């Protein structure tokens, strides 16, 4: 079921490019892991509310709608690999 084509497709979705060696490794590794986790197949699915309420009893937190100070633009840009003024720069997007 896990083959090179599927691995390439998944890598594409995850925005990763794999070398040939990495791809071969991924096929083998993923296949082994998926074989292992196949044991879950026998489980019945839980009711939606149980799965979504989460664990531990959350606080159902919401915050007040108050505008807070934002970052200084220079701080926001401080880790930017490429910038133009206070905007992040990327290769031209063709739309």
């Amino acid at each position, binding site marked *: 079921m896990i083959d090179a084509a599927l691995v390439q497709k998944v890598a594409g*979705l995850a*925005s990763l490019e794999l070398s040939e060696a990495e791809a071969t490794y991924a096929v083998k590794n993923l296949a082994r892991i998926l074989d292992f986790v196949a044991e879950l197949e026998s489980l019945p699915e839980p009711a*939606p*509310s149980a*799965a*979504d*309420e*989460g664990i531990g009893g*959350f*606080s*159902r*937190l*919401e*915050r*007040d*709608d*108050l*505008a*807070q100070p*934002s*970052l200084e*633009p220079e701080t*926001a*840009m401080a880790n930017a690999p490429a910038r*133009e*003024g*206070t*905007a*992040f*720069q*990327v*290769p*031209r*997007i*063709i*739309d």
Partner: protein
Amino acid sequence: MAYEPVIGLEVHCQLATASKLFCGCATKFGAAPNHQVCPICLGMPGVLPVLNRTAVDLAVKMALAIGGSVQQVSVFSRKQYFYPDLPKGYQITQYDRPYCLGGGVTLSSGQRIRMTRIHLEEDAGKNIHAEHASLVDCNRAGTPLMEIVSEPELKSAADAAEYLRRLRAIVRCIGASDGNLEEGSFRCDANVSIRRPGATVLGTRCEIKNLNSFRNVERAITYEILRQAEVLDGGGTITQETLLFDANSGRTQPMRSKEDSHDYRYLPDPDLPALVISTDRIEGIRASLPELPDAAKSRLVQACGLADANAELIAQDQGTTKFFDLTCEAVGASYPAPAVANWLIAEYLPVAEERQWNLAESPIPPQRVAALLQLIAAGTISGKIAKTVFDVMLGSDEAPTSIVQRLGLVQISDEGAITELVERILMHNPGQLAQYLGGKDKLFGFFIGQIMQASQGKMNPELVNKILHARLAERRGRLD
């Protein structure tokens, strides 16, 4: 056309909150790039989203305003895809469990367009395209949005535009959004397909994205229906595509970036607990709902006796409705509501639109307008003179009575004075008089004009009319 258009609309409406959906950055429009960002909306490592209470309140208000069913439990999900304006590499949205299901908007034709759902989600940032590169501005990233999805029940481009106008009137009325298409706080995508009348299966649809004006919505849909019809007539099939509307050419075009159907890999967001909206909260919000445009229109027609079209116009905007109500209240019985409406629509609304005034915060208070209308009702000034007075009122705080006095605009209703002037005008225009008496009835207007000019419009037009008519009739009678 042998085809029946089927149109569904998706509206992304920015909520009028002070801060973003999941962080405290301001949502004000127009800041310089990345001047309204923080680690959370920048998607930095380690940050977490916390939900904005007011965004939920406004969203619930909208659901109630369109008669939708507010779900007590709804879930935020991560919609994953890579794009520079999406800082986290996923958008926090609601997928399989939105907070509102159903609801609808009724068109003037009586057809009720049903909503599929409304859900809450965060907006993406903006990409600005330069020659050599693209630039990413995250100011808008994280702004709260309601995505309002209609069932594919609209049948024409005109209906689509009307649906949008009504929807926008509602969001503005309840204060959920300023509904501004040009500024991007109210964005519309249209799903268009066509089929043979009577067919039960839907045709392949195309999605036209980001239409930024009501006019363009109508133009784009109109074009697309024709385009699809041409394809089918030529024996071809419709390819499911995402399209953009080119306002210059008036045509829809496929988006160049071939987006294969995305696999968004939705995942319930583990950072956000399920959204639980209690009945108490819903009822509290319901109690705070203002009079909605449809209800206002009914009231204006039934209780105030307005004509349908006028009621529609006034009811579309909550500020205008309020202004109208207050003016009527202040003016009392002397100037009936339909007349107030006529005056408002003819004289004030055009000015307000030109000056971009919102009647909710009218620079001229309704009481002062009422005072002006009372002067007309009392016959102190004519409707025509009232226009002059109103012009002055637009530029100053002066009361209408004072303007009238100061400029000597009091209407002359002294029948004696009017008769005197009428006689004088008739005497000074013997030729036209003779023609009139000879049968040229049209010259009546000429005499009115002369009288108005001579009196600088100050004479009571009804009386002038009555007296002129009487004096001419008397002369005619003498001839017989």
